[in-house]
């Protein structure tokens, strides 16, 4: 059974259809890159998979391990193992990152019928993960993303990904706002999380990110559809010739 299956998905925002029948199949262990110009519907896809309000699904379905994902609330999806790394992670003043991480992790565990982490065990786990991502513990005592640099925010997303151990990670424009060094650190963090059980969907404008996170498959989106799929070489082809060639295909 596929891990994530998007079948002929049609999505509207208010009166406008953004996705016009999009299909995508993701198996465990695979890394898929979704590329496309602005407005092609990449972020809409990631939001609909995660369950963000404000989108109306008018056709098609999304299956997660064969279950109807669209029937689940966003927190249920998270507990099942769907993780979205945000393009612009939000700030939550007054809530320490540490508290946030523990509350979220325990909420997920509760939803799965697992026991909650006690503070000492949790601290140990966070310490290990943070060290591997080069995140100082002091950063975790600050409010969630409050005053974090762009790089710190993205590393905080990857920290959460590492802690929650999701089955599918969707990385929405992870490279936006990062300089080359910060990008490398973030990409290393993501690569460390690649595993035969886990799939990743990397959404990006630029081929640049794919030099660091090398995908198994590349899909080109245009005007709400996947217009071409291929191997990692497709990304290089795009880099050379641009998206224009696909505009007509769509």
């Amino acid at each position, binding site marked *: 059974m596929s891990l994530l299956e998007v079948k002929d998905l049609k999505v509207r925002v208010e009166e406008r259809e953004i996705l016009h029948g999009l299909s995508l199949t993701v198996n465990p262990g695979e890394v898929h890159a979704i590329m496309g110009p602005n407005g092609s519907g990449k972020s809409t896809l990631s939001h609909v998979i995660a369950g963000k*309000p*404000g989108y109306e699904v008018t056709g098609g379905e999304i299956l997660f391990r064969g279950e109807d994902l669209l029937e689940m609330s966003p*927190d249920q999806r*998270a*507990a099942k193992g769907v993780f979205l790394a*945000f393009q612009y992670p939000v700030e939550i003043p007054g809530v320490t990152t540490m508290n946030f991480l523990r509350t979220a992790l325990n*909420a997920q565990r509760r939803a799965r019928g697992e026991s909650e982490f006690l503070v000492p065990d949790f601290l140990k786990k966070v310490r290990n993960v943070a060290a591997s991502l080069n995140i100082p513990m002091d950063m975790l005592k600050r409010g969630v993303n409050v005053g974090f640099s762009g790089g710190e925010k993205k590393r905080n997303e990857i920290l959460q990904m590492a802690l929650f151990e999701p089955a599918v990670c969707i990385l929405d424009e992870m490279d936006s706002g990062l300089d080359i060094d910060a990008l490398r650190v973030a990409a290393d963090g993501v690569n460390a999380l690649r595993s035969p059980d886990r799939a990743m969907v990397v959404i990006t404008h630029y081929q640049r990110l794919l030099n660091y996170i090398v995908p198994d498959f590349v899909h080109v989106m245009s005007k709400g559809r996947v217009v071409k799929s291929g191997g990692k070489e497709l990304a290089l082809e795009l880099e050379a010739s641009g998206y224009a060639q696909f505009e007509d295909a769509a």
Partner: protein
Amino acid sequence: MPAVQETVDRVRQIDVDQYRYGFETLIESDKAPKGLSEDTVRFISAKKNEPAWMLEWRLEAYRRWLTMTEPQWARVNYPKIDYQDLYYYSAPKPKKTVSSLDEIDPEILKTYEKLGIPLREVEVLEGVVRPEGQRKIAVDAVFDSVSVATTFQKELKAAGVIFMPISEAIREHPDLVQKYLGTVVPTSDNYFATLNSAVFSDGSFVYVPPGVRCPMELSTYFRINERNTGQFERTLIIADKGAYVSYLEGCTAPQRDENQLHAAVVELVTHDDAEIKYSTVQNWYPGNSEGKGGIYNFVTKRGDCRGNNSKISWTQVETGSAITWKYPSCILRGDNSRGEFYSIAISNGHQQVDSGTKMIHLGKNTTSRIISKGIAAGVSQNTYRGLVTAHRKATGARNFTACDSLLIGDKCGAHTVPYVEAKNSSALFEHEATTSKISEDVLFYCVQRGLSQEEAVGLVVNGFVKDVLQQLPMEFAVEAQKLISISLEGSVG
């Protein structure tokens, strides 16, 4: 819809049960006749066996009240109150006694559990009386409220602290009461305070002698012993030179009262180098989902930093009542005195809050600090109203005010009405204010990480009020945090 309401409805059902068990007749006989007249005032005074001077004081207030009109300036709406259609005195109701927690509605227990109140305290709060035979066993295993209260009383007595119902203090310490009562909130102060002066039922009296640091948070004692916070409470707390006391009123557990109108008066006095820390957790019945019923809470609270280097600090967590009209204030009379006001005011459903503080700088080099966090959800209206003023002789006065409002949903309102008056050029007043809305993006971020909508709102709001929560006595901070989440249940989605 406020979630506590359901629980509160169930509490009401217990009251209905009391009626069925025949307690009602007993109550009737102890009620003053309906309406307010000199006779009502005399009735109340006689019930309390008060000395003549006290009755005179009440009557004077009553006559004054007749000449006054109800204030209209607050941003609250309610039908006209018919003061002749109310009862002004009824003896505390006997609670239906139960012999174990098994007899208490599981929903109520759930609320206590959510608040994290230990079961042994729930037994006390819910009036569990163990049968004689079991009681002995229980004393060791279960915290016995009576013996604890006695231990506390002994400890307080040894320290010289007077802590008793004000009705007793009027009889036992008339000199102290006469010296201080009405000196901070005069009988003529305002409509509701004057009404209170005429008909107040009971309340607390605390006197901490010079140089004494009260050996315990009076909250600890309070939680276990005093649940009969009445309709017209009157509290008077005096910290003599160099004394310190921390006092907490109220309870995080939902409270209901048959009387819709509440008008309390609290007076605090600090002498030289003394400090009073007064914390309130208010969770009265807020009314039902249509905005029917609920307590009208018209409170006058004021502290007088009478001595030099004295300090008064107000901390409040206001989550209940249909209407809250409340401005705990500080008169900074002594030189170098300091006033603080930390407030969390939450309104949900149809609740209306008009609350804030007054910092009146009279002495030299006086400082004050105001941190107000207003949270509005549902179709509620939440107003911060504050006054910071420096007298012309109050050289070197300093104030810092931070006033933040958070909106949840798009049908509620937050309003900020700050008055700032500096009558001398050396005063330095700072005012910061923000209004924000819990954004969909923040909520979505949290739920994407596995939190439910309600957990997400609770988390964000608790982050918002963190600075104020830290001011509460430790054991209440945790409960208050949970109370805030419970108060906001059902405010989204």
